[in-house]
């Protein structure tokens, strides 16, 4: 209750600032603010907040309501302090318990649901990452609501925009559920910024139902990256089947990526043939990226690949087939043999 009052006062302030807006629309705005209160589930990796969680906060911010951050796991005092500095967050709920470290949906979902019920949140946000994809549908089921996945825009508190059919169509969807369970596409919302001061933010212990998980975490095998990470890089160099082998992929693609200071990506064909690690796959079923520059080498431009990179600022392509579909989306294309042109390009960029 207190929280809701708080959020409506905040809205009032915002309203005053926007005092020139027409009376009708400002009334509508006020009503919407009063009922909206957002919870952003903050994902941790090695004790740090992941970038997609900052994007989820930005998405929540678009509702113009109060935002509460949610953090669970062990050693969360540092990330909680970090989260307290995120612009737009008014309160943080923490649950210190190492059984939430691996984000297993079996116990994390009941945990989240208990805290959602207690706090009366109307909108629950998480990044559309492996963590969000595995956790949020379970949360939605426990709340008996439909999930709104991988949104790219928010029209109002009930209406959201999301790509469907591998990004070949953009759907506007209205939800009639009381609680909205939402995952956000990181490339569509710039990460929330940090403020120098976070002291006004309340950090509060949440409730812990301590549910057991029938599934246990055993191990992980994460690719070691000595280059920028694909999800956040401002430039990406991606290789496809045209590279022919892992040796050639490494010989041709890696130096080009380094010359650009870029992350490395790959098509499914390259990953399936073992040229590159699974985690580097860009596309409908791999990662979605939207860097300043996406440079494709030996990639044909299948629908499923385009789904993961079509929103890049500039797309460049090298392919020996002048009719390859990739050229229909590339801002700049070079028709030629990659084994000749790419080493030349790498060398000239290095100069």
């Amino acid at each position, binding site marked *: 209750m207190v929280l809701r009052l708080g959020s409506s006062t905040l809205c009032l302030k915002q309203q005053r600032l926007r005092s020139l807006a027409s009376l009708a629309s400002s009334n509508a705005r006020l009503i919407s603010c009063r009922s909206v209160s957002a919870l952003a589930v903050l994902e941790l990796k090695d004790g740090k907040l992941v970038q997609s969680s900052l994007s989820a906060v930005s998405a929540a911010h678009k509702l113009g309501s109060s935002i509460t951050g949610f953090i669970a796991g062990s050693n969360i005092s540092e990330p909680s302090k970090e989260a307290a500095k995120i612009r737009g967050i008014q309160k943080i709920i923490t649950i210190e318990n190492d059984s939430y470290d691996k984000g297993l*949906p*079996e116990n994390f979902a009941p945990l989240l649901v208990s805290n959602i019920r207690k706090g009366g949140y109307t909108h629950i946000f998480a990044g559309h990452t*492996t963590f969000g*994809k*595995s956790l*949020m*549908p*379970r*949360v*939605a*089921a*426990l709340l008996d*609501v*439909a*999930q709104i*996945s991988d949104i790219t825009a928010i029209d109002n508190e009930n209406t959201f925009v999301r*790509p*469907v*059919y*591998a990004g070949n169509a*953009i759907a*506007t*969807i*209205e*939800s*009639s559920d009381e609680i909205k369970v939402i995952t956000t596409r990181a490339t569509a919302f710039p990460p929330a910024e940090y403020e120098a001061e976070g002291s006004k933010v309340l950090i509060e212990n949440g409730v812990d139902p301590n549910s057991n*998980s*029938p*599934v*246990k*975490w*055993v*191990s*992980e*095998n994460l*690719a070691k990256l000595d280059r920028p*990470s694909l*999800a956040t890089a401002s*430039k990406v160099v991606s290789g496809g089947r045209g590279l022919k082998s892992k040796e050639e992929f490494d010989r041709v693609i890696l130096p080009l990526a380094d010359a650009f200071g870029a992350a490395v990506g790959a098509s499914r064909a390259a990953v*399936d043939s073992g040229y590159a690690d*699974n*985690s580097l796959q860009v596309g*409908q*079923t791999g990662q979605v990226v939207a860097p300043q*520059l996406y440079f494709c080498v030996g990639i044909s431009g299948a*629908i499923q690949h385009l789904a993961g990179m079509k929103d890049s600022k*500039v797309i*460049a392509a090298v392919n020996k087939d002048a009719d390859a579909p*990739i*050229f229909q989306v*590339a*801002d*700049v*294309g*070079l*028709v*030629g043999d990659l084994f000749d042109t790419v080493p030349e*390009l790498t060398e*000239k*960029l290095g100069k």
Partner: protein
Amino acid sequence: MTALRILVPVKRVIDYAVKPRVNPTQTAIITAGVKHSLNPFDEISVEEAVRLRERHTKSPSASNPKVEEIIAFTVGPPKSMDVLKTAMAMGADRSIFVEVPEGEQPESLGVAKLLAKIVDRENISLVLAGKQSIDSDAHCVGGMLGGFLGWGFAGQASKISFEESGACTVEKEVDGGTEVVKGSLPMVITADLRLNEPRYASLQNIMKAKKKRVDKLTPEELGVDLRRRLVTKKVVEPAARKGGGKVSDVDGMIQRLRELGAI
């Protein structure tokens, strides 16, 4: 370990190679006259179920548990019968079909509720679903079903194995690499692309599949309300990119990238 009773939910979707088009009234994707097929991820889960059976047939052991029955399930318009036939031609023993009128595809929440009911009715011990369907791209059904049943859930599986103890170990594809989790049945597992390479159904098996049993059920019989919570207000095509700006050599490429502010 007791024998596995496997449920594989499958969905009829626009074929992955077809570029979908938005209808002129901007309300939906045009589906009439467009090639449809079994959702690629569901092909993979059917394949995995059939392989589990084959593993047992070849060398029965606690790590190759017996597969008692593989049941394919779909909810969709009348033509969805096609994907059940495909699943049965690949090796599913029989099917359950919840038919809805053309154009009324239920959302993930409703599908998961139907599946939870089927799991009870058929005494299922393992649900193998695809990680997402390539039309709605929602990535929800498996996770929701795990929630409704209170079962363990392993999403985006690239390897599934059983141990003598009856434990089920799943390697999952996660951001940045892979992760291994261990649970025990009953479980819901969703398939990622690299779990296996689905087989083509032989002509003989396609013929045999025609004789396999398909039970029809209604949402009412299952006690599930399929009314949508999410209503699509509008569907548009994404802003088109204007490609085609070709350069003739590497120097041209560098110059153009500079002009575009990309380097």
